[in-house]
């Protein structure tokens, strides 16, 4: 008797806080996740107990075999809500009581649903432009309008020059570079700088560093050294330098044969999986489909209905005739026969695995009778005597074709990743979960950019240039009130990756120390690249506070920033210079005063004191993020 009273009081408390007219937002921002977590195991794509599925609005409205479970607009008449109440019979979830708050959330959502079937949300009409930057701004502005959000102003030049160097050159700008840009009075100087950086030597390296980690993951020294030796770094770098079409790059990675000189090193992508075909499938899926499919190993994806177990095992089959061939260069041979596997679903039904693409097509292949023995004859191969055998029908080549020709998911994946690299969050978030469970914040924008990218021969530079020259990319950081991140209405904080942090530390301190050991130490402490959740670890704090490697940057050395700054007669100037070098800005009055006081009170020599001042700036949140 007591608890229902509490419940209604809670509803009264919570209801006014949500905008009652927006059932869609309530669903997307909480109810869906709540049902996924608590109900969908038995009422979803995998099982539909009592004929009920609760994984989408449509399926909820369809109801169970006993009829409707939700009466839109009327939570009190909805069976779904009834079942959640304590002591309900039947009670759901069976062994758990949802909190009052959670129940209130479901109730508010039902209340917000309109009695008439919801009309399709009007999609944003296409823009009247062919220019990616303009299209981005058009779609972002439409989003701000529907969300009722006022975006931040466009950032000032000092912010821009730091941001763009970090993103496209993988380091902070040098003192003279920043000064030159700030002094430049040309009207299109941002555009000019972007073009110069995209044509520069540092852009391919910076993007290789990011994509190396995204494609193959961070690993310790030996494995990274092998990637470098085997030409994987060079392959990726030249792809960005030559601006090769992305579909061509992915084709080379999957096919894994160095037929063309520019594809040398591409086979590392498959080779590094060491004949583990499931790992190959799981590694390639986010690249060609934009989504992880790991969950579909034992059953269809429990939440995203379109991802089937057949997709998972189809990708496994695409690789399971491959075999690593050790030698001077990493090569992956492929057999002309075998590799006909079956997979078993939860109902213990066995099915043959065929290469079934998530974007639709299936790769047909004659299948021998189950007990027939296949002969591995020489005429199955292009060159039967070759050390690394290439079959006349290659499953890898077939997958590479299917993945890179007329596969819209490939472009969508690259666009979403690139957007996330530059904005700090994907249009679909998390970045590698483009599926029905993770709706895009700006679906039309994602489609527009993906189509533009594919239509322009997967031109990476056009996409990157388009993004960084948009107003959206150039917005200032939010004030104290931060807009929801999916609105892209202000600049987001992005942690620098280890390599960028190392180079930026070198520039700020004027001490060069870029040996492999130092790089490894930075990577050990800052391993994340586009992490789902940004976290600062105790290991990081220990590294910057105590590591002798890191401390080396802040000892006075000939030619270092410390020596130069310490030679300035006025303490104020020393502080100003330290700020400009590290944060590309002038100190504010209180920062200046604080810095000067520190230098005055320091017991060590002038140079030591400046070293400590630089340390205090370099280890702070403003330096270790791009914002």
């Amino acid at each position, binding site marked *: 008797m007591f608890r229902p009273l509490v419940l209604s009081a809670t509803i009264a408390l919570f209801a006014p806080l949500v905008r009652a007219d927006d059932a869609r937002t309530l669903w997307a921002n909480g109810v869906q996740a709540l049902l996924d977590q608590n109900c969908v195991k038995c009422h979803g794509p995998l099982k539909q107990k009592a004929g009920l599925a609760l994984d989408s609005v449509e399926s909820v409205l369809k109801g169970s075999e006993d009829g409707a479970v939700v009466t839109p607009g009327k939570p009190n008449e909805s069976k779904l809500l009834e079942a959640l109440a304590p002591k309900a019979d039947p009670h759901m979830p069976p062994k758990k009581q949802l909190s009052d708050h959670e129940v209130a959330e479901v109730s508010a959502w039902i209340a917000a649903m309109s009695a008439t079937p919801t009309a399709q949300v009007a999609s944003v009409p296409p823009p009247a432009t062919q220019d990616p930057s303009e299209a981005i701004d058009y779609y972002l502005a439409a989003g701000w309008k529907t969300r009722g959000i006022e975006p931040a102003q466009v950032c000032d030049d000092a912010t821009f020059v730091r941001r763009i160097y970090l993103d496209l050159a993988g380091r902070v700008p040098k003192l003279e570079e920043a000064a030159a840009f700030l002094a430049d009075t040309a009207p299109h100087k941002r555009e000019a700088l972007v073009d110069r950086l995209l044509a520069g030597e540092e852009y391919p390296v910076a993007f290789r560093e990011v994509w190396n980690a995204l494609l193959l993951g961070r690993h310790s020294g030996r494995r990274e050294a092998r990637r470098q030796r085997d030409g994987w770094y060079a392959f990726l770098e030249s792809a960005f330098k030559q601006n090769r079409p992305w579909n061509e790059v992915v084709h080379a990675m999957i096919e894994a044969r160095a037929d063309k000189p520019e594809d040398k090193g591409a086979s590392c992508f498959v080779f590094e999986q060491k004949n583990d075909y499931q790992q190959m499938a799981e590694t390639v899926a986010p690249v060609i489909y934009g989504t992880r499919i790991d969950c579909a190993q034992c059953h269809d994806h429990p939440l995203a209905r379109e991802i089937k177990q057949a997709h998972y095992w189809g990708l496994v089959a695409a690789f399971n005739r491959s075999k690593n061939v050790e030698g001077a260069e990493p090569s992956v041979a492929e057999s002309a026969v075998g590799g006909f596997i079956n997979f078993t679903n939860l109902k213990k039904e066995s099915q043959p695995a065929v290469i079934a693409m998530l974007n639709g097509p299936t790769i047909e292949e004659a299948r021998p009778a189950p007990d027939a023995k296949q002969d591995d004859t020489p005429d199955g191969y292009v060159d039967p005597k070759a050390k690394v055998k290439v079959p006349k029908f290659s499953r890898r080549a077939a997958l590479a074709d299917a993945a890179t020709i007329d596969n819209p998911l490939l472009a969508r994946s690259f666009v979403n990743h690139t957007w996330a690299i530059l904005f700090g969050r994907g249009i679909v978030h998390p970045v590698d979960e483009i599926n029905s469970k993770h709706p895009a914040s700006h679906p039309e924008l994602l489609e527009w950019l993906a189509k533009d990218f594919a239509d322009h021969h997967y031109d990476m530079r056009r996409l990157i240039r388009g993004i960084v020259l948009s107003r959206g990319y150039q917005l200032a950081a939010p004030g104290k009130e931060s807009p929801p991140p999916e609105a892209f209405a202000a600049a987001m904080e992005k942690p620098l990756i280890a390599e960028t942090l190392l180079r930026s530390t070198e520039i700020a301190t004027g001490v060069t120390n870029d040996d492999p050991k130092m790089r490894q130490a930075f990577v050990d402490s800052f391993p994340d690249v586009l992490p789902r959740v940004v976290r*600062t670890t*105790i290991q990081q704090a220990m590294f910057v506070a105590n590591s002798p490697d890191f401390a080396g940057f802040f000892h006075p050395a000939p030619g270092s920033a410390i020596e130069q700054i310490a030679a300035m007669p006025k303490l104020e100037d020393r502080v100003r210079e330290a700020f400009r070098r590290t944060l590309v800005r002038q100190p504010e009055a209180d920062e200046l005063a604080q810095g000067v006081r520190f230098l005055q009170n320091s017991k060590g020599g002038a140079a030591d004191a400046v070293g*400590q001042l630089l340390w205090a700036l370099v280890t702070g949140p403003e330096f270790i993020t791009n914002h």
Partner: protein
Amino acid sequence: MSASPIPPGACTPCEHRLHRRLFLKGLAASGAAAVTSFSGLFTNPVFAEAAQRSQKKVILLWLCGGPSQFETWDPKPGRPSSGPFASIPTSIPGIHFSSLMPRCASIAHHLNIVRCMHTKQPEHLQAINLATRGNAERAGFTRPTLGAAVSAALGGLDTRLPGFILLDPNPEGNEFKGFKASDLSGWLGPEHQPVRLGGTFTQLRRAVDSSSDDQEERAALRSYFAQKYANEHHSNTAAAQNAAFEKVKGLMSSADLFDLEKLPAKDRARYGPGLYGQYTLMARELVEQGAPFVMVANGMPWDNHVFQHEIHQMLVPELDRILHCLITDLEDRGLLDHTLVIAMGEFGRTPWLNPARGRDHYPNAWSLMMTGCGLKRGVIVGGTDEDGVDPDGTSFSEQNLFATIFTALGIDPYAEYDLPGFPTFHRVEDHAETIKELLA
């Protein structure tokens, strides 16, 4: 990928902080009249200390590479699988250890040996993962290692020490190096990553040396700039960084605990000159100061595919001495009742020798030692057949082992992790049974 620090169904941290009985004992001893609130307890140093001492802890002596059961806990005298070393009687009637372990033999009644471990991974990296995470790998999901799981369940006591400490003087170690570089806290998140000493991670001692007067002032200056930035921007990084720096500050104040030079000289001599002994001694000190989980490793020395006997002749006596010191010290200090000591590798060695007179990997039937923390003492669990080829009857898997460890620590072994967007995972899957022979 976020995870709540305390999985549902697990005991709350307060339950681990203080046993009711000890609480009453402490009350009586201190003569305090009354304690009005639970949180007030911890302002009382007597209780804080009592709580810290009653806190359950783990020292995991990680014998990486896989020691031979025949040259340690399960000798086969007179059989072809036996090496050149004899077996000796122990303080448990009828039970023999290898003659390389005389000291442990003399305190066998304080130890428990599980002689029938049976696992299914013959490769190092996979086996290390299996034995430290307690379950077979599942693609796409990284299960936390034991240290992280214990840190999440028992950490957070009012201690300056981190929940999971990994002492490893040797930064190398073949596959073990790869393991150390991997994600050891899995879905529990980086806050339960170990604080490591060894290799590029040996930073605390340096910090002690370099703690000049400026150290604190520069930290204050850093935090001034950071605070200002956080106030004016919506910065998650600033807050997270701040918390991390606070933790480091706590660690720095305990930096002496991580300094080998500051360990008692007499003890250092007893534990022996090797770094494994020295770091085990450090683990003893850390645990006494409240660290809930310390793992001690030393690269991967036990993988003796060649010169098995010669190398074991060096390694086993060292282990014998270290274990003897550790167990007797913990017992003398009254810590063994609350401290679980486990000595194990990722598998055992073959009953037969290879052509290089080495023993190869053998997960099929192997031994480990675990004692303390309320476990029975002097129990020999299971056994192997006369040549040590198969377990003789009962056998236990990594899941049984983990269920036993969690139970000994008072942590619900079958609690479900609360991981939004994840499949359902438990501390121990499949309701695997505990090794009941060990549980009092």
